């Protein structure tokens, strides 16, 4: 199966990349643009039973793939 992981900067963290993209979008004339957050997307191919995989991926996200000081993560298995 595949784990699809999305990592985003925490709301309280300065996100100069997001701010720059937001400015560019506004500059290009797109209307109604609000805050932009630039994060990361990872796809991990993994085998095993669903529950074990879920536990493993969650642990890996917490320990390594994201930094809980500055980032939030969420993932789905498919």
């Amino acid at each position: 199966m595949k784990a699809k992981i999305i990592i985003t900067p925490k709301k309280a963290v300065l996100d100069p990349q997001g701010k720059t993209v937001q400015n560019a979008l506004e500059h290009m004339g797109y209307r109604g643009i609000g805050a932009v957050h630039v994060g990361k997307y990872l796809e991990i191919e993994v085998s095993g039973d669903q529950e074990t995989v879920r536990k493993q991926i969650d642990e890996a996200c917490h320990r390594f793939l994201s930094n809980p000081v500055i980032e939030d993560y969420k993932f789905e298995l498919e």
Partner: protein
Amino acid sequence: MNFAVLQFPASNCDQDAVHALRHVLGQSARFVWHKETSLGNADAVIVPGGFSYGDYLRTGAIARFSPVMAAVQEFAAKGGPVLGICNGFQILCEAGLLPGALIRNRSLQFRCEHVFLKTVTKNSPFTGTIPDGKLLRIPIAHGEGCYFADAETIARLKANDQILWRYVSATGELTDDANPNGSLDNIAGVCNERRNVGGLMPHPERACEALLGSADGRLIFESLVRALESKSLAKAA
């Protein structure tokens, strides 16, 4: 004193650190490859700058799981002094040995220039003998040096006197212009609660000789050597 200078794939300030320690400070220093599991007879550990593992995923995120880092964790837990410089600071934060994290510079630009640092506390092995009121002129070279920690952690750092250096103007003022990367509270370096692990973004090893434009970085290494000497004297007594 014996210094261990760690080497990860893509460390690039390891040679400068060993040069400064050996040839400027007259200390014994050796390289320790990241796959080693022992620090030997080290009295202190330097985690040098660079772009370990290509800065993949996050700066320092992969290096912190290198085999040698288990030995560093153990060394630090016994009270041994560990100093992280630039990427070394990022690695120590990722490893949980120091609070907070270093994120992308506010300007999104890689900044490579001299900055001025104000030493906030002399109560650490890295700052103990820096003269009062002395501003340190030291170069920075980083794209991810913006120090971040949540409000609660910042309050704790202040309450415990864990902020070691702040970016200031040439006249010593704490201004936004003097902050090269957007660090909270102009923080350039911090230590842990036990005060034996420290980290900073600027490069003291690149500022140890007048020929390099500044010898102020030497004051940080001299503090560390003095702290180690007084520790070993106390042990012998």
